């Protein structure tokens, strides 16, 4: 055991012990521990295996950048692979498993890859595995795929819930360290609406790991007091456990709150994660700085750790990372750790300071040996650090120890400032990339390159004042509380390469990118920072290069002999840390993926035994099986026959319905339909074709004139929303001078088709007015009184089925009752309910088209509607593109009917049409079957098809080709109207 729990100190709650397990081993920790600190406290320093070489790895950081200590936690549908042990709070019963090792973490066969590493250099796979060609998919790739990846995801669904939320504020503060707290306090006290987010379990940032005092109290206590004050302000919202993951246009930030990721069993009714979309007037990044590792041999051996992380484990969770430590630093911050280690009684062998001049005089008062102008060249050990080799003034020295803390300087955390494309700027003075303040967003504190608690506090307050000032909100910065015991670490010159390294010196720990890989990338011409990234995979692991990118840039700069400024960074992109699908999806999945839209006749259909089918957001009644009917076809055939012989009732409420009023309504319709509407008499309906501006048919439907200045339009179900948008476009953007007003009334009316020879007889029983053929002829449309004046409805004499038919619209709330009444009246006469399946058969028999035929590539003439296109009108939408050669050519696909030669044979929609005897090639395809069904009327399968020059091919024998199903049906093209071509039935 090397790491261990200190007997006192820390912010953990020793009164609340928690038990958990790692790789099945029971362990214990305390409330306030992270999984990583608890593992360390249990002496478990080996926490994972690397991606490629399966190197043993321990925890390197105490935060979001952790590349090594990734584990799988949870069980079943709650399994979470690749969880950062550093950010996972410990809870009672937590189960954690290590990843990417076999058979065990301790003994991992994959580690043999390390021996092959000369042959597994960056990009080696692009150069081999090509022969024999067939081996790639059979052998090489499956092997590579098995080896790749880290954790294993569960295949079960998640039992917990997720949600989303919007929030608005004047000032969003991201990061709740000294800087962020100062900003939030300043803005909050001024009455501004503030949101303060921090990814940690508790607000305070590095204050929670700090031993300095602020305003006379320990830093952590100061943070807690500040938090309490903020939480008491009604205009401030504090969100701990919340990571701002992305900055989007309009200063909208995405953030994810881990609401219940720190509990064993989430409470039902509350989400486990919540996605916040924060609309920020102004935002302040107080996200701190990331400490940079140093690139020496064996820098990945468990026991090597970032100095700041070591401080955090020591001070915040009272864990000593090792028994015998050394510190390798390029700056003064290492001395803060030295002081704290000694205060905690951890042996400190040496401080290896790369600077010739060492630390500022008087900064360090401890006992450790100080080696200036010295470098750690190599670390040694297998699964645990055992020694380091130091190079100093040409000599080397080996120190035996079990812990090494490193600090290679700091990289401000500027990700969010760069998500909208802003490029960071290299600062030689800071030895780091900095982001500039932009409209809507500023950076402060360590995120802006500052060091020192007092300076950060002051900057946070000052920037908050400035940002609020831009919004016209007055605030004052107040005075900075006195800070004592802070070791301020001014920026120092970065140390990129260390000479004489023997072992592997890692840059990207998780992806196992080491120094030689970068050198190879440069040698092979992949020296551009983006190419080097892609060729070596540096920065592409789950930590997205938080620790590795700047070191890689520094090394590339050295190799290319240019400055880091010239190399530049790769692109910062969301997500700052990875975000779950669950959080991004919220509650929209499973049955709740999309809302349900319900017809007012849904209840009626259900009572009548309907089978439903999803159509867009609607559930439509598809057919109504009766006892004894075993297949859907039996029911549909019966429904079709009943309509043709007696009558049927069908729910057509989901057709789009648009009310059009205003004195120019008729003129407007004349412009949006290709056929004429201005002359439509009051009381009449007309079928209309609506084109797109490019001349192709957009939608069809009937429109009725209810009054001089009032029309009622129906659209297809699928295009209802689109047609209204389109009409509004025409009315508002094209012809605002017209007085035309549009309202969707789809939901206002329950609409039912009553079709069949007995339709009138049945309907007349509830309609007060005379609806005889004379009084109410085909295409009549009028308001009617129902049930002796009890209700007002609208009646349209239109027919999709080819039978005598009506569509009756009644106020939706009465729909079910009216349908019930009609069923009751009609039943003795043979009336049945019919669904969309029968509706479809009826319309195919009649040769009526739907969006199967109106597929966005047909013009009116293709469907036999050529004569509907008004030649008289000077203008209508689509008129001006119709004359193009390709739209008038004789060999266009045109609507035809198709039947099998053998009535017993059948075919399906989607089959292609080939000329009889033609070879089965795509060039020979004449078209396809767009709709098909079994027609009880014809006594065989029938279809509608779009076939080249189809209208002149009636009678031609063809092959109906469906290779996909192995069905090849000889057939004949014919007129698309299979029933009552003279339309006699419509007019009785």
């Amino acid at each position: 055991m090397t790491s261990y729990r200190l007997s006192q100190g820390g912010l953990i709650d020793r009164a609340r012990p928690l038990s958990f397990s790692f790789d099945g081993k029971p362990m214990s920790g305390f409330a306030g521990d992270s999984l990583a600190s608890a593992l360390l406290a249990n002496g478990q320093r080996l926490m994972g295996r690397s991606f490629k070489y399966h190197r043993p790895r321990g925890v390197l950081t105490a935060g979001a950048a952790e590349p090594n200590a990734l584990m799988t936690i949870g069980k079943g549908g709650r399994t979470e692979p690749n969880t950062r042990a550093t950010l996972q709070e410990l809870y009672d019963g937590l189960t954690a498993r290590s990843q990417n090792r076999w058979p065990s973490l301790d003994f991992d066969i994959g580690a043999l890859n390390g021996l092959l590493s000369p042959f597994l250099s960056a990009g080696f796979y692009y150069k081999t595995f090509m022969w024999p060609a067939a081996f790639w998919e059979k052998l090489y790739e499956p092997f590579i795929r098995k080896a790749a990846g880290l954790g294993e995801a569960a295949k079960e669904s998640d039992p917990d819930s997720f949600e989303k939320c919007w929030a608005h504020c004047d000032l969003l503060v991201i990061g709740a360290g000294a800087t962020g707290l100062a900003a939030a306090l300043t803005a909050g006290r001024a009455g501004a609406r503030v949101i303060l987010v921090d990814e940690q379990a508790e607000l305070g940032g590095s204050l929670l790991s700090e031993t300095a005092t602020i305003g006379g109290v320990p830093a952590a206590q100061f943070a807690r007091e500040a938090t309490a004050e903020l939480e008491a302000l009604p205009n401030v919202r504090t969100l701990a456990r919340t990571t701002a993951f992305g900055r989007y246009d309009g200063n909208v930030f995405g953030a994810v709150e881990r609401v219940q990721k720190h509990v064993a069993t989430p409470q039902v009714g509350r989400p486990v994660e919540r996605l916040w979309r924060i609309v920020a007037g102004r935002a302040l990044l107080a996200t701190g700085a990331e400490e940079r590792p140093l690139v020496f041999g064996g820098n990945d051996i468990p026991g090597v750790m970032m100095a700041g992380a070591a401080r955090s484990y020591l001070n915040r969770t009272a864990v000593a990372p090792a028994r015998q430590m050394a510190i390798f630093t390029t700056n003064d911050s290492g001395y803060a750790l030295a002081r704290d280690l000694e205060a905690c009684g951890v042996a400190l062998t040496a401080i290896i300071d790369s600077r010739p001049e060492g630390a500022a005089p008087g900064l360090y008062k401890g006992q450790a040996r100080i080696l200036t102008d010295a470098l750690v060249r190599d670390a040694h050990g297998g699964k645990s650090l055992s020694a380091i080799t130091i190079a100093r003034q040409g000599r080397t020295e080996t120190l035996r120890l079990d812990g090494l803390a490193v600090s290679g300087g700091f990289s401000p955390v500027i990700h969010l400032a760069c998500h909208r494309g802003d490029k960071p700027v290299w600062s030689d003075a800071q030895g780091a990339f900095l982001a500039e303040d932009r409209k809507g967003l500023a950076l402060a504190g360590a995120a802006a390159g500052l060091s020192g608690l007092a300076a950060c506090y002051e900057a946070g307050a000052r920037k908050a004042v400035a940002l609020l000032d831009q919004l016209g909100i007055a605030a004052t910065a107040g005075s900075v509380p006195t800070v004592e015991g802070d070791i301020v670490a001014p920026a120092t010159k970065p140390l990129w390469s260390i000479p004489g390294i023997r072992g592997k010196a890692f840059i990207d720990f998780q992806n196992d990118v080491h120094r030689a890989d970068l050198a190879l990338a440069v040698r092979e011409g992949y020296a551009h920072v983006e190419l080097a990234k892609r060729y070596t995979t540096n920065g592409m692991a789950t930590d997205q290069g938080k620790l590795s990118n700047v070191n890689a840039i520094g090394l590339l700069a050295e190799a290319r002999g240019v400055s880091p400024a010239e190399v530049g960074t790769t692109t910062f992109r969301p997500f700052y840390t990875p975000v779950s699908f669950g959080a991004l999806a919220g509650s929209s999945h499973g049955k709740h993926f999309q809302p349900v839209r319900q017809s007012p006749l849904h209840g009626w259909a259900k009572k009548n035994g309907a089978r439903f089918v999803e159509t867009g957001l609607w559930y439509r009644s598809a057919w109504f099986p009766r006892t004894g009917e075993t297949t859907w076809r039996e029911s549909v055939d019966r429904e079709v026959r009943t309509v043709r012989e007696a009558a049927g009732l069908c729910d057509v409420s989901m057709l789009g319905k648009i009310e059009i009023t205003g004195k120019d309504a008729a003129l407007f319709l004349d412009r949006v339909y290709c056929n004429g509407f201005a002359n439509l008499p009051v009381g009449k309906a007309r079928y209309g074709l609506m084109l797109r501006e490019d001349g192709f048919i957009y939608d069809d439907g009937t429109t009725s004139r209810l009054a001089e200045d009032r029309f009622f339009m129906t659209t297809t179900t699928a295009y209802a929303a689109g047609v209204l948008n389109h009409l509004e476009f025409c009315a508002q953007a094209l012809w605002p001078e017209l007085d035309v007003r549009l309202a969707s009334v789809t939901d206002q009316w329950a609409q039912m088709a009553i079709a069949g020879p007995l339709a009138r007889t049945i309907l007349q029983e509830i309609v007060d007015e005379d609806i005889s053929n004379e009084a109410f002829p085909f295409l009549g449309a009028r308001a009617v009184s129902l049930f002796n004046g009890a209700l007002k409805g609208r009646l349209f004499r239109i027919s999709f089925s080819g039978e005598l038919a009506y569509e009756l619209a009644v106020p939706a709330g009465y729909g079910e009752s009216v349908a019930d009444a009609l069923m009751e009246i009609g039943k003795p006469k043979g009336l049945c309910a019919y669904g969309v399946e029968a509706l479809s058969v009826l319309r195919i028999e009649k040769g009526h088209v739907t969006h199967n035929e109106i597929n966005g590539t047909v013009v009116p003439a293709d469907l036999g509607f050529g004569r509907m296109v008004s030649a008289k009108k000077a203008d209508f939408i689509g008129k001006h593109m119709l004359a193009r050669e390709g739209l008038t050519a004789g060999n266009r696909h045109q609507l035809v009917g198709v039947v099998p030669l053998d009535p017993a044979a059948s075919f399906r929609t989607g089959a292609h049409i080939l000329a009889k005897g033609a070879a089965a090639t795509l060039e020979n395809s004449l078209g396809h079957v767009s709709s098909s069904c079994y027609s009880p009327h014809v006594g065989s399968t029938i279809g509608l098809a779009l076939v080249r020059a189809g209208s002149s091919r009636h009678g031609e024998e063809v092959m109906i080709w469906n290779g996909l199903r192995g069905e090849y049906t000889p057939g004949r093209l014919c007129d698309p109207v299979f029933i009552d071509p003279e339309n006699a039935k419509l007019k009785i």
Partner: protein
Amino acid sequence: MRYSALSILKNGLFGNKGWKPAWRTPAPKPHYDVVIVGGGGHGLATAYYLAKEFGITNVAVVEKGYVGSGNVGRNTTIIRSNYLLQGNNPFYELSMKLWEGLEQDFNFNAMVSQRGVLNLYHSDAQRDAYTRRGNAMRLHGVDADLLDREAVRAILPFLDFDNARFPIQGGLLQKRGGTVRHDAVAWGYARGADLRGVDILQNCEVTGIRQSQGRVLGVETTRGFIGCNKLALAAAGNSSRVAEMAGLKLPMESHVLQAFVSEGLKPFIDGVVTFGAGHFYVSQSDKGGLVFGGDIDGYNSYAQRGNLATVEHVAEAGKAMIPALSRIRVLRSWGGVMDMSMDGSPIIDRTPIDNLYLNAGWCYGGFKATPASGFCFAHLIARDLPQTTASAFRLDRFERGYLLDEKGQGAQPNLH
């Protein structure tokens, strides 16, 4: 330098010091026979085939960024030839055939991996549309299978079959579809072209097109004027901007499409699956990340980055299709700018300017086309005749009314 297991072994033994640059970094020559604008997949493939198949080697590819900085380096790597229309299908099948021999051809492992592309359907109408499509494929000799629900379940038991808002009814499978390692395609073609004498000029942005008497003389670039006998545009999302330098206005808009990758996982899903009830498609890279995407953001953009609303839509559809995605974390999102043409299909054609050639309008589907696009564009440039499978990709088809509109959405690019 030939790549092989042996070369790896040899170099590995000597500290990997012997490798040479994959392509040279030449200075621009004053004049080339052909200058290709755009060092993406299409531009590089065009150069490669010009040199290899048509013997034209005095060629430069000018690229404003680094090789592969455009869409070839940011797409979701899906290849398939499941097209519907006669003007499209044979071309994409040609491309598939070229993929099938590509790596041996250019001696670079691009990980062409035919693990299958499955398009799910959730309604009879979708099934019928896939039947039509599958039959078009079959008629051209392309593999296609229509699977029912149980057959889909057998391959992908963890899709949401039981609690879905739009239950899965089946799917259209192209077994020969799959994925290819995107960057390797750019690098492989670059290396192959370079070996045959093509100059690849990175960090060289075309800023103007010099013309005289209706002919192009050459291009102004950030590295000076470069003359040419023929100028070929393959600038993907920036086609309108480059064409404008020659005074042409194109039937297209630039739109952003986002893509995503999850944290690395042990094998989770083998082939490519697309959701039919929303915008989502996913595959798993050989490195272990789930690579996925959805619909375009829907507004004109040159920004290479997208919107949170689209991110959410994609995740919603993803979890609706695969509930087990819930706890999987998304690592990174990015965007690419594509030219969305007015009918959703590409253009490979001459232009009204005599020696100016255009390859554009690939929308979100041009990666799979890379080999055939390069080959056919090279054919057109070298012979001044369209290659047969690409003969429908004409620039004047909009004006003449011969559209190639697979979706039937009409002249509104963001609907394709």
